[in-house]
């Protein structure tokens, strides 16, 4: 047991160690002060946060329905909405393009009626990230809802609490740790999104160029800068995980 576990841990940590060793530490401050890099980092953080917000707003109700509905077909729906978890992100990007692109299923009407096209916009980045990341929130919250004590909700209902009040005052606090864990996972996944973003939203500094895209292009011409920015992404992700863990996750859920 111990040896394979050790190999697994080493395998997961080795690439990170590689980044730490190879990173041109002295060039880091200068790289970060470059406007394009700062822009990409800021865009990444803004878009990942927006995608997490969207996922919470729409994903919690979806998780609720999936956990509580007894209607036939609900298990098929569950399988379908979690599809982006296993779908190659670039396929997700293609799917978004043919659905919401200027010539897409729905997108063509956006273009015809409002003269608006989604690809190459920051909104497209947020949508691409939401598409690949929301399932993480949905399955985490759904799992929590299934195991939450429904007796408490029923008791509240018999005492005259309205459904939304019950949800807000009983259910939400019950699943809070999973909600936080799900949000962090969603945020982290959105932050690292590459395939769907580059396929659906394109790549332009300040508008659609997030850190992963910037890194991908840098690696071709200036590997050192690419490695340095990879390190920045690593630090941002680690900081997010550590911060949330200390602040919100006390005894209940652990990431």
């Amino acid at each position, binding site marked *: 047991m111990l040896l394979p576990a050790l190999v697994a841990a080493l395998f997961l940590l080795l690439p990170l160690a590689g980044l730490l060793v190879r990173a041109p530490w002295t060039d880091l401050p200068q790289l970060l002060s470059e406007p394009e890099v700062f822009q990409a980092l800021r865009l990444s953080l803004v878009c990942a946060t927006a995608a997490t917000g969207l996922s919470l707003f729409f994903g919690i109700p979806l998780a609720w329905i999936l956990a509580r509905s007894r209607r036939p077909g609900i298990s098929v729906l569950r399988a379908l909405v979690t599809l982006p978890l296993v779908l190659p992100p670039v396929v997700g990007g293609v799917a978004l393009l043919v659905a919401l692109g200027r010539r897409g299923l729905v997108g063509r009407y956006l273009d015809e009626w409002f003269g608006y096209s989604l690809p*190459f916009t920051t909104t497209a980045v947020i949508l691409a990230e939401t598409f690949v990341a929301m399932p993480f929130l949905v399955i985490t919250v759904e799992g929590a809802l299934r195991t939450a004590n429904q007796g408490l909700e029923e008791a509240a209902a018999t005492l005259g609490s309205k459904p939304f009040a019950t949800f807000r005052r009983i259910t939400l606090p019950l699943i809070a740790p999973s909600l936080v864990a799900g949000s962090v996972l969603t945020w982290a996944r959105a932050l690292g999104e590459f395939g769907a973003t580059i396929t659906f939203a394109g790549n332009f500094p300040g508008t659609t160029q997030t850190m992963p895209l910037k890194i991908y292009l840098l690696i*071709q011409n200036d590997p050192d800068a690419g490695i340095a920015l990879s390190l920045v992404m690593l630090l941002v992700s680690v900081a997010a995980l550590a911060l949330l863990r200390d602040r919100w996750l006390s005894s209940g859920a652990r990431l």
Partner: protein
Amino acid sequence: MHRNTFGAVVGLAAATLPLTACGGSSSSGTSGEITVFAAASLTGSFTTLGKAFEDENPGTKVTFSFGPSSGLAEQISQGAPADVFASAATKNMDQVVEAGNASEPVTFANNTMEIAVPTDNPAGVDSLDDLTNKDVKVVLCAEDVPCGVSAREVFKNAGITVTPVSNEVDVKSTLSKITLGEADAGLVYVTDVKAAGDKVSGIEIPAADNATTTYPIATLKDSKNADLAKAFVNYVLSDKGAAELATAGFSKP
């Protein structure tokens, strides 16, 4: 389950055995196997050339690895087992030569840029100047890749400033944004417009403004089958090779 996997592995090994044996037995003359590293833009024409070469030289096998020239050059310097390198940029070939891995590169083709638009040309683009219009959604290759460098060279020659909506990672993804109709126009290689068939229309760029990319080819020092590698390079340089490349839209150097 385990038994099946095992069977499959043995089957696979047995299937590849004759190939290996063949490659090993005759390492001189025009027989055996070679691996050709070639720029992604050569995919179509080199695949056809490789098949024709195999047909004309029974007992030979040409395997291709297509990719961005910069990536292939890097792989060669890391010791990838390749016999021939065909690059889409002199710069990447020079790197390989300087590292002592290739000898005497020969330029075998030229490529130029063209404006590609969706067949229905929704923005009504018909010249370089139209690309400066803010309402025209232009996609270009990023400046980090050769087709992006060439695109900027064209704009510089024409004395215009174009702000794209996206800097795509390579020429194929630039083309696909146009093929799908998401972008109104883009700059790609003439050969890419040709390869896309009737999915895009090409608009010629005046020769004075155009940027030319040259394609060098060379045999590699570490080749295990230098004669065959040389034979393949000669085949690419032959009239037949030139004809096939011309069909794809490449021009003679």
